[in-house]
């Protein structure tokens, strides 16, 4: 099976989800072609990383038109490649750009569009994904018809393999971009300050804070632990609504749906709307002073205690063990 992967990157910085998708594609392709599609600039810096996940081919289109107009030029380039080479499946990361591109491509090519999968397998020559519905309480099998079938993949669904290799690199220009795609003009880009931490929807470890923190200044406690773990920082809606932390970090039904390797909830009660965004995390730790807090029902490890004592002590302990 020929499986293509749209690389998610920002400039030269390749997002981990891209390597996860490439690794899975390689596993499922049964020796078929695994192509990475790099749109935009920065391939020079990212090439090695992409190659490490073992694609057989990399298509690179770094025409500046891709950055000048929103989404449509990228769709034109991808559509023309797909029409020419007819891959069986295309994997796209579940991000704002990824979803926009995938939705347009599916509408244009008449392809199925399987959304937000957290698992993928090959069955009778078909890729079957798993979609966690209703906040992860139901696991639904789904797949995409069409050439290619399009699958939108959640970060942290697959592990990264690094077989290495030297893929053939094919440069393509932006000649597929139609005039009608030059209308939604990007006039300014403001890159968000991340404090050097991974974004919650990308992070493989997340430390989240809730109302139990008591105020915005106390997010420093959560950030301290996050930094020892190389984690992203999340927040409950109560904390976000109070203006303590930016809304991009909100986890839950009306925030991000995340499934990291490790999710540490500090001072979060675990309301159903919060759990809907994080209960598919592989390991859940809760620190809360209320033994009745619903978060404990889904915790793999829970500490009933004052987060202001437990979290700083844990941070110091982990720093020591990691240093050792």
């Amino acid at each position: 099976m020929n499986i293509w992967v749209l690389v998610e990157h920002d400039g030269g910085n390749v997002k981990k989800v891209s390597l996860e998708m490439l690794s899975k594609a390689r596993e499922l392709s049964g020796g078929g072609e695994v192509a990475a599609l790099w749109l935009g600039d920065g391939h020079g810096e990212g090439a090695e990383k992409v190659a490490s996940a073992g694609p057989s081919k990399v298509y690179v289109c770094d025409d500046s038109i891709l950055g000048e107009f929103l989404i449509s030029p990228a769709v034109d380039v991808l559509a023309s490649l797909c029409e020419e080479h007819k891959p069986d499946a295309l994997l796209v990361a579940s991000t704002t750009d990824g979803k926009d591109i995938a939705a347009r491509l599916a509408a244009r090519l008449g392809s199925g569009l399987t959304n937000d999968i957290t698992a993928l397998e090959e069955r009778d020559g078909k890729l079957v994904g798993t979609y966690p519905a209703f906040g992860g309480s139901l696991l639904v099998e789904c797949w995409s018809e069409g050439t290619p079938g399009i699958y939108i993949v959640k970060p942290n669904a697959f592990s990264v393999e690094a077989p290495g290799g030297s893929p053939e690199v094919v440069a393509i220009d932006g000649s597929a971009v139609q005039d009608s795609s030059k209308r939604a003009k990007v006039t300014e880009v403001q890159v968000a300050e991340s404090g050097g931490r991974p974004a919650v929807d990308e992070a493989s470890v997340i430390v989240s804070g809730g109302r139990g923190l008591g105020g915005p200044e106390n997010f420093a406690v959560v950030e301290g632990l996050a930094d020892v773990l190389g984690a992203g920082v999340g927040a409950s809606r109560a904390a976000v609504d109070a203006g303590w932390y930016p809304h991009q970090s909100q986890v839950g039904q009306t925030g991000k749906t995340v499934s990291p390797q490790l999710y540490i909830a500090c001072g979060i009660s675990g309301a159903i709307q919060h759990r809907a965004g994080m209960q598919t995390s592989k390991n859940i730790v809760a620190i809360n002073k209320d033994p009745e807090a619903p978060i404990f029902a889904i915790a793999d490890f829970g500490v009933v205690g004052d987060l202001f004592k437990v979290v700083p002590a844990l941070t110091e302990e982990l720093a020591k063990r990691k240093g050792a």
Partner: protein
Amino acid sequence: MNIVVCAKQVPDTAAEKRLSSDGTLDRSNDADQILNPLDEYGTEAALKLVEANGGEVTILMVGPKSATETLRKKALPMGADKAIQVTDEALHGSDAVATAYALAQALKQVEGFDLVILGSESTDARGSLVPSALSEFTGLPGLTFAKSIEVDGNVVRIQREGDKGFETVEAEMPAIVSVVKGINEPRYPSFKGIMAAKNKPLDEKDAAGAGIDTSMVGLANSKSKVGEWKERPPKEAGTIVEDDGEAFAKLADWLEENKLL
């Protein structure tokens, strides 16, 4: 300016959600149906623009007959002028792409609109797919995930809340815009609004009436397929410790044992 707001009915988040035997959302419990929360933001955004610039707001909904209630109880009372509801058995089970096609066809019959506003996602399936697919089918510029909208002559400009930060994006109208949570504070319908809504025009169309080719929609014609599903296996009970001053060390051990460091 004339604005069409695409709005959908979804199950209330607090209500229990189920799948019916064909893998589509079970909507049999009508009492729990609400206007998709994101579409309140879309409706509010449209009302604000019309209040500033004059014009009309039309709600467009593809959904079951029972969704009329949601239109009469929420979207119209907020202040929209009229609604179009496309209702047809043939539409049942349409995926995001098929829904977008149906909306695009229905839009062809709305004369002289400047903007189509959608929510950035519906809270039932959390797709975030219909707005872009709709841009594709209509051939109109798509300005997605707007955190703010402004209209300047015949240009619409948004702040797009992307993955990497904010992008300012502009296009000539007509255009398609999807809005994120928090773009505004949706108003509550007033008593007067609720009364007035009872008599607002609601144009009900079947698929043929909306110009929809039924071989493009519905469960069977959707290219995204749903197979079997199962309940997520219940989580095994975890280890819960009371902090005696040493819990941090036990937690650190546990993290280490599970190779999470």
